[in-house]
């Protein structure tokens, strides 16, 4: 309890002006966090559908144990919302401390819901010793997640930007804009689909389309209620009405999520897939799941970009351990490991100019893989719209296409 | 050792099934005869204390001066032999006999060996009961009952499943051993040959004497 008080004090200070005195205090308090964390077991609730991510999390667990004496248990989720549900159920039962969830891999609507409901601990990110290495200027999505100010309630650990994947052996010249895609689908019926909304990636594709068909996408940054929703989204539905008959399975079925879409590409059922992980294709090729003729591309006018966060529920039983974990994932060596396509291919949240020469060399030495675009070829990262758009669009999609007539 | 059935009546739904008083002296065989469905099995069940629900019973059963009417089966000291031998299939021949022998008895192996010898089955302790012939199994069942040291013997058509040649020998074998130990025996059967061989009084479940056809 005493340690917690010290921590809270430090966190309050950390969010205030970073005076020298506060930083000294900070260091002291962090030591006590690390001391308290020793011996704890941190339950990290993170989506468990990808063996590479699971293996990476296991390797982070080994480091956590070796460096800090903290045990990491990866609770493999089928859906991040399961962990949200869990915390809600605990609050419902009056369990305001000793909760089962210590850390969650989260962003978007799940993050917004938890933050709005006061289910998160924080702000804490600026108390992390590795925080100064994070590049918030190059990656604005770190501070604003889906237009929601993060305000220190989530520690970023990877950047994501939507990239499209195609097999050059089948489709050498892919369409590079929404309009080109529309034409391509009409010419190649049955060769394109997207994950069924309200799946995250599927709804993201709809937002990408909306971006492409709108003259002024900036209105997407405000809540959907503030705009003339019907008028704004009308071109989106026109687009979908047009492509749906020519989708895979004539739009009578959709893949469940990103990996399901990736599997369709691997099976040759579709010619274009997409992912939020620019390194996914290279990693899948390395694992023998995709042929080595697959390449990635982005739309000329940019693709959606966002960050993944580690958040700590307000009632986490092993809060100190979770903080140590959040800091460890920002360690340059671990960030470089995550960016290695042979391991994950995730984009780092760190600014290379903020690193030591040795650490910078780690990133420079990475071979990003044959299918991964170089950072300067990634094009523009588009800001994620306000979460209300995602919710409304997903609902409308279900009403229009998600229920068979 | 004497078995006394004192004014035993069994009714089911108000219908009388059994009404019996009798006295069976040591070594004597009382035969209860009747067609199937006449209540013979009900009588036996009442004697061993395993009357199914739905029956009402009045009267007393005395064995060796003890009133055993209200006792559970295991405390009555009434040995019973069924139409089938009911050897426990999971135990060896010796195991079956050991099951019958009370726990406090010393020199168990010797007693079991002697019992097997007596039944012409010497050395068969480790055999699987399923590997024996019908006659052998019947004899093991009898020896198992005798080893448990009963005060009386109840026989529920125990010879019905044996072929006729074997049946005569088995009858003699059982009656001879019961007499030798002075056990009162109640034999329930529908086979008059059994009754003739038993040589004792023959009655039906109402206690009325039954006339046997002359041999």
């Amino acid at each position, binding site marked *: 309890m005493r340690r917690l008080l010290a921590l809270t004090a430090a966190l309050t200070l950390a969010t205030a002006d970073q005076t020298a005195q506060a930083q000294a205090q900070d260091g002291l308090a962090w030591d006590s966090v690390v001391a308290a964390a020793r011996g704890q077991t941190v339950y990290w609730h993170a989506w468990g559908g990808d063996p590479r991510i699971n293996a990476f999390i296991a390797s982070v667990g080994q480091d956590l144990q070796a460096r800090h004496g903290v045990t990491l248990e990866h609770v493999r989720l089928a859906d991040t919302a399961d962990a949200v549900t869990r915390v809600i159920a605990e609050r419902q039962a009056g369990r305001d401390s000793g909760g089962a969830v210590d850390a969650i891999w989260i962003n978007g609507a799940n993050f917004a819901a938890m933050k709005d409901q006061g289910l998160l601990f924080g702000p804490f990110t600026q108390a992390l010793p590795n925080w100064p290495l994070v590049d918030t200027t190059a990656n604005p999505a770190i501070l604003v997640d889906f237009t929601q100010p993060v305000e220190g309630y989530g520690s970023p650990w990877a950047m994501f930007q939507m990239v499209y994947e195609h097999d050059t052996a089948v489709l050498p010249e892919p369409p590079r804009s929404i309009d080109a895609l529309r034409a391509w689908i009409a010419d190649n019926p049955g060769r394109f689909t997207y994950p069924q909304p309200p799946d995250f990636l599927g709804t993201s594709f709809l937002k990408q389309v909306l971006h492409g068909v709108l003259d002024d996408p900036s209105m997407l940054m405000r809540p959907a209620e503030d705009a003339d929703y019907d008028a704004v989204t009308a071109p989106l539905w026109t687009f979908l009405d047009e492509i749906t008959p020519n989708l895979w399975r004539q739009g009578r*079925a959709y893949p469940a999520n990103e990996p399901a879409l990736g599997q369709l590409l691997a099976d040759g059922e579709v010619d274009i897939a997409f992912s939020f992980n620019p390194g996914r294709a290279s990693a899948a090729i390395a694992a023998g799941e995709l042929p080595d003729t697959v390449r990635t591309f982005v739309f000329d006018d940019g693709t959606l970009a966002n960050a993944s966060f580690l958040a700590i529920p307000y009632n986490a039983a092993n809060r100190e351990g979770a903080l140590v974990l959040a800091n460890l994932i920002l360690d340059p060596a671990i960030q470089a490991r995550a960016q290695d396509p042979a391991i994950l291919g995730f984009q780092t949240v760190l600014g290379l100019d903020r690193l030591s020469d040795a650490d910078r060399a780690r990133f420079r030495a990475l071979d990003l893989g044959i299918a991964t675009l170089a950072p300067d070829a990634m094009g523009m990262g588009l800001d994620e719209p306000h979460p209300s758009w995602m919710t409304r669009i997903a609902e409308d999609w279900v009403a229009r296409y998600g229920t068979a007539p | 050792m004497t078995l006394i059935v004192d004014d035993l009546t069994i009714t089911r739904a108000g219908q009388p099934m059994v009404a019996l008083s009798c006295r069976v002296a040591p070594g004597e065989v009382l035969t209860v005869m009747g067609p199937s469905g006449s209540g013979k099995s009900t009588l036996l069940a009442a004697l061993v204390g395993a009357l199914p629900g739905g029956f009402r019973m009045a009267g007393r059963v005395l064995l060796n001066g003890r009133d055993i009417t209200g006792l559970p089966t295991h*405390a009555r000291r009434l040995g019973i032999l069924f139409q089938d031998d009911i050897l426990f299939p999971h135990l060896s021949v010796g195991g079956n006999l050991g099951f019958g022998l009370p726990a406090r008895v010393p020199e168990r192996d010797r007693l079991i060996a002697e019992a097997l010898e007596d039944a012409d089955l010497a050395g068969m302790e480790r055999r699987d009961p399923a590997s024996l012939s019908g006659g052998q199994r019947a004899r093991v069942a009898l020896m198992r009952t005798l080893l448990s040291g009963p005060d009386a013997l109840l026989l529920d058509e125990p010879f019905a499943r044996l072929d006729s040649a074997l049946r005569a020998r088995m009858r003699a074998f059982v009656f001879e051993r019961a007499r030798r130990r002075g056990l009162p025996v109640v034999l329930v059967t529908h086979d008059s040959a059994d009754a003739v061989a038993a040589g004792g009084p023959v009655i039906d479940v109402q206690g009325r004497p039954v006339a046997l056809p002359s041999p």
Partner: protein
Amino acid sequence: MARLGLLAALTVLGLPVLAGLAGVIGPAFGYLPALGGQAFSLEPWRGLLAWPGLAGAVRLSVVTGFLATLIALGLTFLIVAAWQGRPGFAWLTRVLAPMLALPHAAAAFGLAFLIAPSGWIARGLSPWATGWDRPPDLLIVNDPLGLALVAGLVVKEVPFLLLMTLAALPQTDSHRSLLVAQSLGYGRTVGWLKVVAPRVYAQIRLPVYAVLAYAMSVVDVAVILGPTRPPTLAVQILDWTTDPDLSLRFQAAAGSVLQLGLVVAALGVWRAGEGLVGGLWTRWATRGARGVVADPALRRLATGAAGAVGLAVGLGLAGLFLWSVAGLWRFPAAWPEVLTLRTWAGEVVALGPVTGQTALIALGATVAALVLAVAALQARPDPGRWVLALIYLPLVVPQIAFVPGLASLALVLGLDGTAVSVALAHLVFVLPYVVLVLAEPWRAWDHRAGLAAAALGARPARVLWAVRLPMLFRALLAAVAVGFATSVAQYLPTLLIGAGRVGTITTEAVALASSSNRRLIGVWAVVQMALPLAMFALCLLLPALLFRNRQGMRTG
């Protein structure tokens, strides 16, 4: 003592179901203080009714439920009618028994890998027969009518109903009845259907109800094989339950209550249908048609059905295993280009502890269920109608309707998140199956053995331990095998009561299902089925080993 056991068993079965139901009825009418639902309202129902997919989802649940149950029952009767008493029947039952141990999810994955346009069947026929060099754009898995879902349910429920039928046959005097029918000139299959089927049906009525309720409300199989626009009601309820928009939780509770109502109504309709079909059956049976001509055709149909079920499961599992060791495997190759243990190597560290935990939980739940079942049967060897209905309660009430409420209860009591509480939750579902498997052999046991033992001076406890239980050893182990498999297959109770801290192979496998990664699914599905199958094998081998010198213990 035994009476106490019966009471305990009935409490284990009834209380969690009722408590769990109470836990969803409140939120269904707007009452859930932690989420701001302070007053009772009909808002959740308005939300439910406003969902555009409701009519479709309800229709799907009802149609797939009835269709799967009717087909599974029909095939089961056809197979037994055509095969009972023939050489091969014993073999058939021996092959089918272990299929009961197969988790539904694994069987569903296997089937999906088999029948999908990029599945093994299409690969086997391509390109030489079909001309396809890429998978055809055919909607087979996740079809809007739910036919793939029905197929997945049928292949898993036929073995269950077959084993239930086999257990019921001895009580129906089927052999002699069939002999009489044949001597009157009836064909074997038609004779069986006319004479034996009605009596068998009366015996397996409750298992059939359980199949209907399960088929209407299943989540995992429906996620894998069912339609998505809209999904079945149960899947949609789970979606709402796990939606980040917390207000949807009220709607989910209303959906749970609707799902329960649907199942109850469907059971009512089925019950009414029994009377109707029974009347028609009697008219058919007394019409005098001998069905001799139809016999060979019916028998071929039955053989085909049994073969199809066996092949669907067998090839499906082989496919799962192959994917688990596959490297690059492109369409239309029927065999992977590269075989590799890479996926296994990556998972082996995670597999070990989870497998151990799964086995421990399953053993705990099974042993507890066995003790309770023996105590209950000892107290009431012939359960009355109400006791029987209570035994089936956890199988008939949809899990999605009461497990979330039960989880809230466990949380309030601080009982969640431990292996013991997960095992206790499993007990609710393991106990009914253990009782089901054990009841018939228990009843059929020759009571004269007990009487003989008592007459030899054995007290009731000794009769139980030294005579009855050893004689029923085979049946006890069969109950253990089925109970173990039931525990391993539990998804919702493990997920919700385990609070993420206690996972089993099944929660891991379903979590991985979201990855659509066939290699990974292959690895976990193979382990998921290997564990219960290993227990099955052990339970078959153990009595054979212990009683190798006891011919009398070979059957029963």
